[in-house]
């Protein structure tokens, strides 16, 4: 079983796999989390996992891109972060997650 691609295990970063079909492979997108990006931040593992799962797309933690993945822990936090970063949610998923564009 370990000789299969993922064996019996879920693919790495499986939570981000729905996004693969929505983002072109050559696109750089922002990745917005509960807190602004800091190399020593609490939620840093989320962006690392997302980047590893979504290669060859490039994730920009600083919110400089026209499109963004919103990956917050709840809807209220997502709304707060959307306002702070100037994005507008266009494809909302559950629990503060979705895809947004610069408003």
């Amino acid at each position, binding site marked *: 079983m*370990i*000789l*299969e*691609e*993922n*064996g019996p*295990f879920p693919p*790495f970063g499986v939570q981000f796999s729905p996004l693969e079909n929505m983002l072109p*492979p*050559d696109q*750089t997108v922002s990745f917005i989390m509960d807190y602004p990006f800091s*190399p*020593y931040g609490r939620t840093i593992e989320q*962006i*690392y*996992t997302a*980047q*590893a799962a979504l*290669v*060859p797309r*490039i*994730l*920009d*933690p600083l919110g400089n891109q026209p499109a963004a993945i919103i990956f917050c822990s709840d809807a209220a936090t997502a709304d707060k972060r959307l306002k702070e970063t100037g994005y507008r949610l266009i494809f909302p998923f559950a629990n503060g997650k979705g895809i947004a564009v610069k408003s």
Partner: protein
Amino acid sequence: MINLALSFILVFMTGFLFIHFLLKKIFFPYPRFLAVILAGPAGFLFASLLLFWSYVLSPINAAGIASLAFLGSVALLTVLYCRHPDISLPVSKPALWIYFFPFANHDSKLSWRTPEFWRCLFLFLFRILLLGLFFYALGIFLRLFLLSMLNNFYGGWDVKFIWHVKAKFFFRDPEQWQGMFSPVFNWTHPEYPLLIPAVVAWGWHWAGKELLIWPPMINGIFALAVPGLIFWYFLSKQRFMTAFLASSFFLLSGVFQFWMYEQYTDIPLCFFYTAAGLLLIQACRFRAVQFFFITGLMAGGALWTKNEGFVFAGWTTLLTGLLIVQRKLRSKAKSFSLSFLAGLSLPLGAFLYQKFMFTPRGEYWGAGHTLQDYFQMIFLDPQKTKIVFQGFAAYLFRNPDWNYLWWFFAAAILYRFWVNLRRRNFGNSQDIAGILTLMALAGYVTVLHISPYEIRMQIDTALIRLLLHASGLATVFAFETFEWVESSPKPASLKSSSAPFQTAHRP
């Protein structure tokens, strides 16, 4: 899966044929054993370089170009290897099995009443114990290796979030492979060298999918090669007991075991440091250009694995130059130097191309510092210097996972210094491993001073791994300094080519 197995066999074959072909005409003990140890890592090094240059030439066809070039190399090496017969002349090969049966040295039956009988019995039991320790250490290694494949298949933080991300850029969409150098996500260190990512992608290309089993296999081969090299080094000097003791000691190091399980690239780097150091010793011992070439290649492997390897390659080049001058090898100085540089230039070319063309602005390389900045950072920040040395003291001497390796090493350095001072004779081949270890540590003291990261965080997260790089060489130096050379009985007959304690023939 068959494709992956085939790719692995080809990688191993290439490494073996290349190393053994080079060493065919040098008379030294156990050349095939050395070629087997170096085969995997050398094959991986070639595969990664071929894949990198293929991506530079034509990203879309890179996998095909690299595979074809590799198959061509294997065919060429096979032809060359078969056309030049193996010259295994008067090198006395000490037979390992005789070591474990000291009674075999006696022609006639030994009476149990003689002291020689009891001496042989004691040696027999002691050596069986030694063998038991070795297999115990090897068993622990194999258990951890299997666990890393079955339980920790994604590897540690750096592995899954840095090294394998780069491998995915190679594999998933070759047209977008240069995305790995993007400064946008600089937390994945775009400027890191590409040996491991390229080798991982190489296997995935052959398998046609991102197989979980491949990266731990690469890691395991590098990890096993380090104690293998230590074992071969002492074996080649006919120090059987030290070979078993030193390699077992290294295999039982908690630091080595932990980072092997985590699959960090510090294990391959430890291999290249150890290989470059030990082969440099052999290069000086046998005065053969081939050894200088492989030493350069291994030093180049270090810089193609991690940025730290660049500093080490610099130290190795400096030490090689000094040794050529100091050991009166001037008559062949040019060919020795050129051989070393030729070996080094293969990975160095790829390293420099990556730095200049893809990542000209890195954390260290191209950071925009002037010489004055470096002088200030290294010499005019006493607070930082104090923290760095406190960090070294803590991680070298207060970490129980080393099994007191660095205490042992420090004692060996002091002892060798005292002995050399009394004899007024510095720069013996026995000192090379110690000098390179000290150079590597001094390099890391400097690097920590110019690190852009918060120094305490840097020490907490990286220093133990930096020390691991030089630990193979430190182990060799410490054991060689304090080894107990067994007094061997005179063999009854030296007619047999397998007499255990003959010295190796030097050309």
